[in-house]
């Protein structure tokens, strides 16, 4: 097969990117980039609040989306030249569009806001009766429906946005993670002018649009998806280079071209069975570049993403959103689908970083406002269910701190690299346990909400595109997600099994970061007095 089998595209414009240089765009891509909802991504910072610690980290989802498209294209072209990804004549354009649109459903402050919205939606879906003909397997005596679930059941049943989300991604519905930004993308694309742009291009029909949505959400089949969702995907490649460049922390740099040059697709053989790989692997000549890439990821995460001050800000913002969500001051997944159902695209347009900051300014300047009824009806049913999780005073104090960049006070921090299977937990792990927190707060005489803990347990060689700090337990660390190398005799091996690879020595290790924060020096002193005498 020759390079002539790579789908030819007509590029009509170039955008200069500070990471990749000129990025060429086709007409349909240009039209999408010019759409209001894509421009919205300019106002969603890629790294949330990290600019409070790394002032250069002001890049956004707009830059990143272009970069992912550019890298995905390089990957597709390489694979098509090697006779992969050639089933459909338009595969290259479809993958480019999926890459370009992969973050179109992102929440303000990137993952910081996404985590509480997803958590809330999952909890509430869990309380709904399952669809007709379905049964959720539950233990006898477990709670089933709860207050407010009737309203949510009615809303989702009549929502065309949610129905679309449900129908398109059936393989992942059981996880109830409907509010994931990659699933929100399906709603944003299909319920806005972006769909018209795609159809008007004359290059695709509704089914190809659905394919784009499925590639983005991870419910598609085949190698197309691995370009966007795998250990070797364009998303990770771009964020690492971009975050490194923007923060000025050079540890994130790696040899992208060498990895892409040696990309391969291999089906497992019966002698090399493996049920859990995407099929995407790297030829042996690219092995060192892959090792360097994994180490670069580790250093970027441990230095930048998990920087202790920024973790404190992250937790404050997340808790503020939770508190506002239960009072109906900010939208939940259910409010968002209603916005799309009613065609109020402009309201979604404004759901960006500025929305978050403006909300904080409003409640900080007029604290009594928080006691009033919020305008998001679906969110406010949460408050009706019981007591608020976060007090008004706490929300207002955290809001002021976020606005003025006043960090939390660090009480204790411990970092250690340990064996994954080791039963030895961190010296601080016992301070994160519910009953221990109750006791410490009681003895230190501080409100429980000001005893703020953060627990990160991160594999060194397997880092996802972004591991939300609040959702760390759900991150899956498995051998099956590891990168495979194609040997010179065309057989494959897991990189973590290669005795000549540095990764082998790190594969069974994890970085533990346990942190405790509080409000101020006085609280810190009181907590320290208690925990210094607390039994492990």
């Amino acid at each position, binding site marked *: 097969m020759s390079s002539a089998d790579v789908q030819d595209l007509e590029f009509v414009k170039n955008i200069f990117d500070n990471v990749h240089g000129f990025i060429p765009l086709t007409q349909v891509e240009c039209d999408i980039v010019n759409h209001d909802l894509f421009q919205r991504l300019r106002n969603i910072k890629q790294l949330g609040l990290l600019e409070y610690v790394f002032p250069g980290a002001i890049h956004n989802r707009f830059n990143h989306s272009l970069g992912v498209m550019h890298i995905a294209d390089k990957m597709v072209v390489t694979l098509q030249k090697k006779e992969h990804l050639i*089933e459909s004549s338009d595969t290259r354009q479809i993958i480019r569009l999926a890459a370009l649109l992969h973050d179109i459903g992102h929440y303000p402050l990137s993952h910081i806001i996404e985590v509480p919205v997803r958590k809330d939606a999952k909890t509430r879906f869990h309380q709904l009766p*399952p669809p007709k*003909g*379905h*049964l*959720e*397997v*539950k*233990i*006898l005596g*477990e709670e*089933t429906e709860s207050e407010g679930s009737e309203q949510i059941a009615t809303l989702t049943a009549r929502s065309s946005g949610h129905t679309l989300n449900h129908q398109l*991604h*059936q*393989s*992942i*519905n*059981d*996880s*109830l*993670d409907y509010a994931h930004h990659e699933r929100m993308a399906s709603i944003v694309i299909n319920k806005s002018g972006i769909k018209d742009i795609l159809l008007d291009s004359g290059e695709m029909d509704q*089914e190809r649009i*659905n*394919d784009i949505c*499925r590639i983005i959400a*991870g*419910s*598609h*089949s*085949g190698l197309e*998806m691995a370009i966007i*969702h795998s250990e070797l995907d364009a998303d990770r490649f771009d964020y690492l280079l971009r975050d490194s460049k923007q923060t000025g922390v050079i540890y994130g740099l790696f040899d992208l071209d060498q990895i892409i040059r040696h990309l391969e697709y291999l*089906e*497992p*053989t*019966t002698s090399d*069975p*493996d*049920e*859990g*790989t*995407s*099929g995407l692997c790297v030829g042996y000549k690219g092995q060192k570049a892959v090792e360097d890439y994994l180490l670069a990821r580790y250093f970027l995460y441990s230095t930048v993403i998990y920087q202790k001050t920024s973790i404190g800000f992250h937790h404050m913002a997340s808790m503020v959103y939770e508190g506002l969500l239960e009072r109906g001051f900010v939208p939940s997944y259910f409010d968002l689908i209603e916005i799309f159902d009613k065609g109020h695209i402009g309201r979604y347009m404004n759901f960006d970083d500025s929305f978050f900051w403006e909300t904080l300014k409003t409640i900080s300047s007029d604290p009594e406002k928080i006691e009033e009824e919020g305008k998001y009806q679906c969110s406010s049913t949460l408050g009706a269910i019981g007591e608020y999780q976060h007090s008004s005073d706490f929300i207002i104090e955290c809001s002021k701190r976020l606005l003025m960049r006043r960090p939390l006070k660090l009480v204790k921090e411990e970092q250690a690299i340990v064996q994954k299977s080791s039963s030895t937990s961190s010296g601080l792990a*016992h301070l994160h*346990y*519910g*009953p*221990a927190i109750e006791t410490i707060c009681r003895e230190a005489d501080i409100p429980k909400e000001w005893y703020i803990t953060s627990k990160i347990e991160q594999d060194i060689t397997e880092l996802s595109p972004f591991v939300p700090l609040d959702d760390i337990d*759900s991150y*899956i660390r*498995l051998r*099956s*997600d590891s990168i495979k190398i194609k040997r010179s005799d065309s057989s494959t091996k897991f990189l973590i099994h290669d005795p000549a690879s540095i990764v082998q020595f790190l594969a069974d290790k994890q970085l533990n970061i346990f942190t405790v924060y509080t409000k101020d020096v006085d609280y810190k002193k009181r907590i320290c007095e208690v925990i210094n005498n607390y*039994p*492990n």
Partner: protein
Amino acid sequence: MDESWEEADEYRDEKILSKILNLLGIESIDMDSFDNRLKYQKLIYLVQNSGLSLGYGYNWYVRGPYSPPLTQDLFEIDKNNQIFESGKRLDLQNEQEIVKRIETIKDLLGKNIENSEFLEVLASLIYLKKSSARSDCASLQKRLLALKPRLNQTSDIEGMLDKACKMLPSFGA
């Protein structure tokens, strides 16, 4: 320190999973065998597609629908047999209906419940049907063989594909 922090019921999902696998006729979990791992993955996929939700999302990997969280839970059970034993004794809500649905799956699969390759083909066809506009068996089979050319070497692959196609409606596909 209170003992319950080590013993808290963090194995809820694993216990429910054990119960369902046991109802499917599996007496213990052995994750050392590739065939077993494949079988567990595909059986749970079939169970969920029969309308019994266990909460596992599935994505497409080289062997068809695959759920990393399920693998994690299975390894957890494999590591600690007590989870499986205690799961087996669990009482479920709507247990009669659950047992009935699982018996239907067992009847439908017959001896193929032990055939991991058949389970892979069936689960893959269900996934492809539910994630595309392809509705007829011929185009589903064509897509499957394009994604998994290895299957062309399987003896009587046509018979296997046809048999699996006939079962699709039973799994909502």
